[in-house]
Structure formats: C-alpha cells, structure tokens
C-alpha cells in the first residue's frame, strides 16, 4: 500500500480517483492508494501511520481500547460525530468521512481537551492502556451533550473496559467534563463549523469507490448490478461481525460489496403504521426509531452490544447474519416484523421468523440481499416486552433473550407472539406455548400451562454462556415475568428499582 499522501494543499476534484480512499484527519485530507480491502482502521493507524495512541485490546469490538470517533455528513452542512471500534472497521469504509483519534484532541500548544483534562483531574487513568478509548467515547458524548448526567456517561461507556480503576473516577470525569472552559480545538462550536462540513463535502464522490476486492456502490442500481455480476460477493454493512472474520478467524474474504454508501438503503421510512429500516441504517438510528414506537424496548436497545458497535453495525446486518443469539430478532419477530429481500429489480418479503431455516442458514438466495426490515408500529392494544439475561448487564451476549406481544380481550388472550433467542439454532417463536395461551384467560394458571409447553418448543444447548438447564429455566421465568409485570399490582421486579438507603 502506498503511504498516505497528505493532499491538503492539492484538493482533488470531486468524483476523482475511484481507487483511492480519502478521509479527513486533523483537518487534512488523507488519500490512500492500494488499500487492502480488509485493512482495519486500527492497523492502518498503528502500522502505517505509526499513530499508536489507539490501542488493540481484543480485536473484536468488545473492550473499547481502539475507540475512535468518526465524523459523517448528515446534512450538507453538518457533521455528526460518533464513536466506533477501529479494530473491526475497515479503512475503505471510512472513505468520505472524518477520523478523529486520541491524538487529535489536544490543541497545537499541547493544551488538553476538557475530556482529557477531566480524566487527569479525576485520576481516571492508572495503567492508561484503555484510556484513549475512554477519552474518545467521552469525546463523542461531549460533542453531543453539554451537560451529561451520570446515566448518560454510563451508557456512553458501556463498550469500554477498564481493568484498573473500578470506573468511578472515569464516571466522575464524564460528569464534570462539561464544566471546563471551552477548548480552542474541538469545542462543540468548533465541531459544528461549516468549514468542517465543507472539507468533508469536498471528498464526497459521485462514482463508486472501487478497490481490488471492495466496491462501494452509491445506489441500489449499482448494487444490484454488481451483485448480479458477482453473486458470490460478500455483502458488508457495518462489519461488526465480518470484522471478526478477519481479526479473529483469519479468513480470506470474498470480494466485498459495501452497503454503507447506498443512498436508498440508508433511509428509515415511516408509513401507515410501519417503519421501514434500510439495510445500511445503523443500529443506533434503527433502535432510536423503533423505541420511539415501542418504548418497552428501550432497555433492550440500550443493552444491545455497546454504543460504538451500534454506531457501526446495522439492524439488517444483525438479521441477515442469522445468529441464534442476535438480540434484535426475538423482539422483531414478536412484533411481527417482515423483511424485504431483493435481487435485481425483484423484491419479495416474508415474515422474519421464516427467514431462518437452520443454524446459520437463511432463506437468502444467491444474488439476493436483505434490503430492509419492516417493523409494525405501536398498537395500543398489544402489550409488548423483551428481556435479555446475561452474565453482565452491559455489552454481553444473552444467555436467553425473549420477546412477547400479547393482545388480551375481555380477560382472554386474543393473540400472542412469543419469540426466543438462545434457545435453538435460530431465533424462533414458541409456537406450542403460544397455542396454549390463545383463548385462555390471562391468569397465573394459563401462564404455567404455557411454561410447561416451552419444553416442547425448545431443547437448548449448554455452552460457555449458560447451561441448557438455565436456559430452559430462564425461558420460563421470562414468561412469568411478562405476566407479573401485567398483573394488577405487580411486585417489584427490577433490582434497578430498589431505593438505596
């Protein structure tokens, strides 16, 4: 790969150089030729630029030591900055964006940014290895929120692990960073400067970025054509799973077609009580839209991976991936979501649960891709809930995840959809339990009958996350919890609701 050329003094014509990755770093346009398609942003920073502040802690997006901030034009004159995991993000996918690393924050006189100064003042680093990642996660929050509350800080840091401090001083730093004087560099005003957007506009392209082994079509037509020509291509969206194929499984990837620049797939449409969420919509944006409709899913949305993973990953990627433990599927299936599959100009749709045929097997045919998921909007008569149980609250993969949607008429179950993750080779409905419930009075006895039927729905496995025993037991307990939450005077059900003396 050619060394990056810093071309700030020689601006490129828009649309030029379809084989050159361009992005902004520290106010300058970086142009990189011959980018290997699976080169991660982290390896590029460390091994090619010698810019070693960003660290590798796990190479799977789980520890946050590699966190950087990515700026992306969201309108013509506004850049939206979000934290991502650089260890599993391919460099080619940051084309047209602005990269901000821990080295970017202090001003040229060496004055620390308020985020950094707060971390110093609160004694929030010990070994310091995780620190750049924490700084960058907090920096993204700093730009977004002038006066974050403790809960905002905790939520923002769900994807950053620290093994030294116990987190208390880092939380304190996050809570106090807003009280420092505005910095010369990277204040909220500075981040919103029109010049930043203008610089990014100058590197937006009209023709697709096309590297050896990597194509980033700009619209669906280009995408379907490319996929039609090469149906064995690997479709890459957020890369929060595909990244691990490279960093952990050391796999050779098929030529990639990147969905992230396909304009039509970046849309969320809201229409006639449905949400249509395109394949390139990030989990952050998708969950925000879903939770607006279904407030009961707020906790699930918050516990889904971590902010940097949600900022890169996509909801449709989570769906297409077909993992039995993907946390979105039970809720989507319970809500009755459908997915839209596309090949060429042909589009078909199906209920989400029908998409999963077996362990990591889906109904997707060669040359076809998941274009969108269609999520029904709020129905005031349907009670909805989703629970995720895991060893750790934040950034964990569920042992069991369940979702329930029930309509009760005159005290009887009129209709019900129950879906589980972690209980079978695919996310699946509990059809026996559902069948028991329909038509019966909504009562403790009915629920226990449905619990008994779960044994016919599922034969879960034991693995490192939980035993089969626990999974069966958890599946039952979740159904009971759903009932209890809806009882006339529910007991306290959440440890988080306990008032501390």
């Amino acid at each position: 790969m050619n060394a990056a050329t810093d071309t700030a003094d020689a601006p490129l014509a828009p649309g030029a150089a379809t084989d050159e990755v361009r992005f902004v770093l520290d106010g300058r346009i970086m142009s990189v030729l011959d980018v290997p398609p699976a080169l991660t942003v982290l390896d590029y920073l460390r091994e090619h630029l010698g810019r070693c502040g960003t660290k590798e802690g796990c190479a799977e997006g789980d520890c946050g030591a590699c966190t950087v901030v990515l700026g992306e034009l969201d309108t013509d004159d506004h850049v939206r900055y979000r934290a991502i995991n650089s260890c599993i993000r391919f460099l080619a996918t940051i084309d047209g964006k602005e990269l901000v690393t821990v080295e970017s924050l202090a001003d040229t006189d060496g004055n620390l940014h308020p985020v950094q100064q707060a971390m110093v003042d609160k004694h929030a680093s010990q070994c310091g290895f995780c620190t750049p990642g924490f700084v960058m996660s907090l920096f993204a929050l700093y730009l977004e929120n002038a006066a974050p509350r403790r809960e905002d800080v905790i939520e923002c840091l769900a994807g950053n692990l620290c093994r030294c401090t116990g987190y208390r001083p880092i939380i304190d730093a996050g809570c106090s960073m807003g009280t420092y004087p505005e910095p010369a560099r990277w204040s909220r005003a500075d981040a919103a400067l029109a010049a930043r957007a203008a610089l990014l506009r100058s590197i937006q392209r009209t023709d697709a970025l096309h590297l050896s082994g990597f194509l980033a079509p700009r619209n669906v037509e280009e995408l379907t054509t490319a996929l039609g020509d090469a149906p064995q291509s690997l479709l890459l969206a957020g890369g929060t799973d595909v990244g691990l194929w490279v960093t952990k499984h050391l796999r050779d990837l098929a030529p990639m077609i990147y969905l992230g620049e396909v304009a039509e797939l970046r849309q969320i449409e809201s229409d006639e009580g449905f949400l249509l969420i395109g394949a390139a919509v990030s989990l952050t944006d998708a969950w925000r839209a879903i939770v607006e409709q279904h407030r009961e899913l707020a906790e699930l949305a918050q516990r889904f991976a971590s902010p940097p993973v949600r900022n890169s990953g996509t909801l449709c990627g989570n769906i297409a991936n077909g993992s039995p433990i993907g946390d979105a599927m039970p809720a989507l299936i319970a809500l009755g979501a459908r997915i839209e599959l596309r090949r060429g100009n042909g589009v078909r749709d199906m209920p989400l649960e029908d998409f999963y045929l077996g362990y990591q097997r889906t109904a997707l045919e060669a040359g076809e891709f998941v274009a969108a998921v269609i999520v029904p909007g709020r129905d005031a008569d349907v009670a909805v809930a989703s629970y995720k149980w895991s060893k750790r609250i934040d950034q964990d993969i569920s042992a069991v995840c369940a979702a329930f949607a029930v309509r009760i008429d005159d005290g009887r179950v009129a209709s019900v959809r129950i879906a589980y993750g972690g209980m079978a080779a695919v996310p699946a409905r509990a059809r026996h339990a559902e069948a028991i419930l329909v038509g019966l009075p909504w009562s403790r006895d009915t629920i226990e009958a449905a619990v008994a039927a779960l044994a016919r729905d599922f034969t879960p496995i034991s693995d490192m996350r939980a035993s089969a025993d626990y999974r069966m037991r958890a599946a039952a307990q979740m159904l009971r919890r759903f009932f209890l939450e809806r009882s006339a005077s529910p007991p306290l059900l959440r440890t988080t609701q306990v008032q501390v003396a």
Partner: protein
Amino acid sequence: MNRAGHRRHAGANSGVGTAVVGAGVRHESAHLHVTGAAPYTDDIAVPADTLHAAFGISPIAHGRVVALDLAAVLAAAGVVAVATAADVPGENNYGGILHDDPIFADGEVQYAGQPLFAVAATSRAAARRAVLRANLRFDELPALLDVRSALAARSFVVPSKRIARGDAAGAIGSAPHRLAGSVTMGGQDHFYLEGQVAIALPQEDDTLQVHCSTQHPTEVQNVVAHALGLSAHAVNVQCRRMGGAFGGKESQPALIAAAAAILARKTRQPVKLRLDRDADIQITGKRHDFVADYEVGFDDRGRLLGLKVMLAAGCGYSADLSGPVVDRAMCHVDNAYFLDHVEIIAHHCRTHTVSNTAFRGFGGPQGMLVIERILDDIARTLGLDPLDVRRINYYGVGARDTTPYGQRVEDNILEAITDQLLASSDYRARRAALAAWNRTSPVVKRGIALTPVKFGISFNAAHFNQAGALVHIYTDGTVLLNHGGTEMGQGLYTKVAQVVAHELGLPLSAVRTSATDTAKVPNTSATAASSGADLNGKAAQAAARVLRKRLVAHASAKHAVAPGEVVFAAGRVRIGKHDLSFRELVSDAYLARVQLSSTGFYSTPKIHWDRSRFNGRPFFYFAYGAAVSEVAVDTLSGETQLLRLDILHDVGVSLNPAIDLGQIEGGFLQGVGWLTSEELRWNAKGQLQTHAPSTYKIPSVRDWPLQANIRILEHEPNREDTIHRSKAVGEPPLMLCISTFLAIRDAIAACAPDARELPDLRAPATPEAVLTAIDRLDFRALPLAEPDKNRRRTDRRGTRVSVP
C-alpha cells in the same frame, strides 16, 4: 503527529510550598495516557527488518506428540523461520522455581493452548495465519481437567503442606456445634488490557536487548539468557510501563520474551511477539481455582473452637508459582480470626490445563473466602448476625493474637475499623430494614454483609524482600530516578518520585523516572506482593539520602555551618544564612567534584520463615480494611446488582491518597468480577471456551455500585518503620469483594422460609449460579420462582453434623 510538547497540566503537582509526600498528585503519566502519547511495548518503533511472531499451540489437553510437521508453515507466505524445542540453544524452560515449564512443549503436551512452536514472519498477520497450517498428530492421553479429579488421583505439582496447632479434631469433637461443608471458587483471567508482548533486538557481540511488558525484568533476563545459553550480562531487559499486569506479568512474560529471543537468535533479526487476546487467555496462567472442605466446631455464640480445612488448588500442568500461592492461601485462612485449634492441609493439584500463576492477592483471596464462608455458615446455623460471629472471633490485642503459622499480630486495628465502618454505613439499621423489606418483596431480595481483611505484607520467601535504586542529580538540578520496581498502572513511579523529591526538598516536577532496566538496577525482585512502594521507596530514599548527605557535607564545609543548618525545601537550600537554589548548590558541588549519583538498597527487617515447619514471621506487617456491601438479587433471572458499598481501608499514612483510592476502588471491583461475572469455562476436551471479552465478562462501568462511600482510614500510621509509615495497597482491597459475594448469599438465604438455610452458592455467582443456589434451598414453596423438583440437592453444600 504531535507526540511531544503536551503541556503538563500539573495542578497539584507543582509541589512547591506543599508537602510532596502525602499529596494526592496525579499519576506521572496521566497527561500521556489521555493523549495517547504514553508508549507501551507494542508502540516502540522497531527496525524495518523486524519480524513478527506467533505461537502454534496444542489443540488437545494431554498427549504425546507423534508428528510436528511444519513444512506447510514454513512454506506459508511471509514466513522466515520456525522454532521448536529443538531450536532452543540453551535450556527449554521458563519455570522460575521448578524447571517444569517448557518454552516449547517437547514430546508431550500438557494443556490445550500449550505452545509447541513459534513462527517468525514478515507481518503479524502472516505469522498468525501460518501457525494454523501445522500438521500436528498426537497420541492422546487421559487428561485430568478439574481439581476434584486431580485430588482423587493424588496428582500434585509439589508435595502437600500442613499447618497445625493444638488439637483440631479433639476440639471439633467436643464442640457444642459442628458443621462440615465445602467451598468452591473459580479462577480468574487477569485481562490486563495490554496483552503479553516482547521485542528481542539482537545487538553487537551476540548480546540482546529485550523490551517486554513484565513485572519481573530480572526473571525475563535470566530466562532469556538460559534459553539462549548466554550469560546474564549479555541480555538487557527494559520496561517503561505495562498496560495492566495484576500478577499475570510476573512469571508469564519470560515465555513470550524467550520465544521472541530464540527466533531473533535463529534469524539474526529483531522479533516482536505480541499475543492476540485469544492466544493470551489460552496460553497464559490465571488465578488458581480452589475447592475447600472444612469441619468446624463452635460454641453457642459462634466462637470457633476447632477447625480443619483441606485446601485444593487447581495449579494446572506445572508448578510455576503455585507453591508460594498456596502458602499464602494457607496463611490467610485465618484472615482476621484467631484459630486456636486448627489444621490446614493444602494440595497443589496438577491438572491438564494452563498453569495457574500469580494474581493480585496470590492465594490470599482464596484462603480468606474459605474462612468467611465458614463464619457465614456458622452464623446462619445459629441464627446470628454474621458480623457478630466475625467479631467474636477477631484476633485479640495482646491475647489470642498468634496466627496458625506462629506470627503474632501486633498491629491489629480491626476493632477500630469495624466500629467506624459500622457507624458510617449504618449497618445494623440497614440490616434490620432489609429483613423487613424482603418479607414484602417476593421477587427482588436484598442482602448485606460486612467482611474484614487482614493481609500479610512481604513476600513469604524472605530473600525477595530487597530492592535497589539509582538516583542521579544533573548539574541543572534535575533528578533522574531509576529503581527495580515496574510501573503497571499502580502509580509506583509516582510514589517513589514523591519520596525522592521529598528527600531532596524538590518539587515533584524536578524528578523524572526512567524505564525499569536490568542494566541500571540488577537482580531485582518482581514488582509483586503489593511491595513495590515499600521496597523501592525505601531503596530510593536511601539513595537520595546518600546524595543529600554529600551535598550537606559539601555545603556545611564550604560555608562553615553545622550540617544541621543545611535545609532542603521547595527547590531551595538554606545553608545557615545563605539561601541557594538547589540547582546552584548542585552546580557548585559538581565543580567541587562531589559525586552526584548514588545507588540505594533496602532489605525488609524482622522477617524470617521456616518453610519446613511452616512457621515464622513471613510478614513485616498487616494491612487491614473492611467493607459493607448491599446487593439486590433478581430471583427470577439470578442477576445481581451491587446497590451500596461502604469501605474503610488502612494504608497507614498514605504516600498519595489519590493513587491509594484508585487501588482500593479498582482492586475491589476486580475482586467483584472474580466472585460474580468472570467465569472460566472449559469444554469436556479441556479447551478453554471463554478466551475473549465476548465470552469472558470482567466488570463494566455499570457494575460500579450506585452508591459508594470509600474512605481511607486516618490517623493510623504503620507501626513498623515503612516508607513514611505508609502501607502496601495493591492487593489488600481486592479481598473486600468478599462482602459482595456474601451479601448475594444473604439475599439468597432470604428466599428460604428457614433463615438457617445455608445457600450453596459457588463462586463466581453468575446468574446461573445464583438461580441454582435458590433452587437448592430447602423451601416448601417460593412464591414465584418455582423450585426445580427434579434437581437433587448436592452433597457439596454445608451439612449439619448432629450434636453428640
């Protein structure tokens, strides 16, 4: 890139006019940490011809190697060389005590993950891919995969040990109450954020420069020298900082550095070996898992009359540091309690799993958890508040004060700590309120526990309790400090620099610490056993005092004043009526040919240890603390939440309260991880299944308690002459986590109709473990969480023995 010139945001660090020792100054690298400008070993610029290495590891737990065919590995893209046991020029071993840890398995593999060979390639990716191409064949042999199996097979890495005092069996036999039970606790991966890494750089005349993330540069130097057949003076090892270590970089880095050195020797090129996270967790040792069986006799008030404990540690395939780890476990079964008639037998179980090693606490946490569980069992059996049972068993002052290993507890301050913490935490009232609350809450249950810590400070092996330092004063009045201690985030460099600045009356900014380096201070002990500041602080102080004495002699002679009239303060020196800057005095001394460099040395006094009799004074002093945890348990899911935490911890006179607070908080939460969410799971073939953060869950930000009151005990200087009367703080606070575990147990007990139930809660208390413990309670009907009628009650739980 702007790496240089970050303005120091000194804040409290100016030190001028303020006491440097005892000030809560920031970590010496804080401004570098937050800007990404603090280089770790992997960040060091290497020569262009540097090769990158990776290990090829055993996929099976135990077997004879039938074929180790590396032809395809060698043929892989980018591969320059491979190394196996046959390529080790010297000794194929990195075991520090017994020489039973091969660098590369030779003929037999003893755990899944054991290195068989290593590859050097032109890129890290090429090396990692190449090792997967090996053609390996084995004759598989039976494998022992857990402690109980190894115990049954009498498979041990070193001989079992015993401490006994009085007549334990007789005292138990005649006690009014007796109880027997078992305690099971898992191990723990260190999960330092920076994985193991070493760089071997061949130098002139067959010498070698090694950069290594290590707590023990001297051991790395020795192991590398032995592996290459070199003398120690031909190998130089340096470490500026580690991205966390926690004991995991005490003996383990020698393996990494040795493999890199062997490949560097073979290729005559620099070699870097950095383990990826999965390899790191699979290859390197962890905290020992333990099982313990006990029998105890006690009176109506819960006072211990006789105790027999069998400890069995899961050591893995080799001894590594297991002998000393188990010694420390045995020396902490007493924790804060006087054990009159006692027998402790310990076994070091050899299993076909990774060789377990040092981890913050070094066996102490495991020993302590056993006695705390026993006292909890006693209290529940008698229907007493566990705190009352604990207090009645505390070591006395002037009586009932001798440990099972013969050391008198002369500095016991636990009564005062407990009284203060009881008041500040409002323990009694909250305990009563919780009991009432639990009666009205069928699903969420709350629990509370107060547990104390008494932790012995010093290496059990007396000879490790020594340290050296080297202090230079330059003619501009600045000071460069070097010592044998390593910086892993604990703030050692900051604290020792504070000590030196204090001795010379300088602002802290005048003292800089250079990377730990075997060429500067030789023959060092590992920075371990919480001893870093105790040992290196004293050694650096000694060096600084030599220099100050020379400067005083020079100044008093030149200005004809008594030595007592030369006073160093705030960067200046008063010499009788004269007032000079430190720099002026130093320049003057230089011109007068005064030596401005000195070494310093320290060895801990008073300690002695008779290994054969398991008796002596292994510890210079004890560090104390206590914690109250209150938790909520969701009895539907088994999930737990730490609601409130109160800690009062003893650090003597703190050298740096900000850093000490960080050690207390961080150590505590790391311990909570060990006892709650961090679960190591092996499959039936002995392959570790939890070798990445996606499957191995250390505490995250939400696990810090909602309400925390963490205080450092005041006005209790160390009774021994330690550095500025401070106390070690690295390990002791970790064991405060036992309060959280027992609070969870308390909440589980609240599910049972009979308050005297002894919940069978294994550690870690994962949601599944909590739910299992609830299931095993002997309850007639729990309102909502249905017990599993088919589940057999285990015989591992505490069982009451009938009173004669």
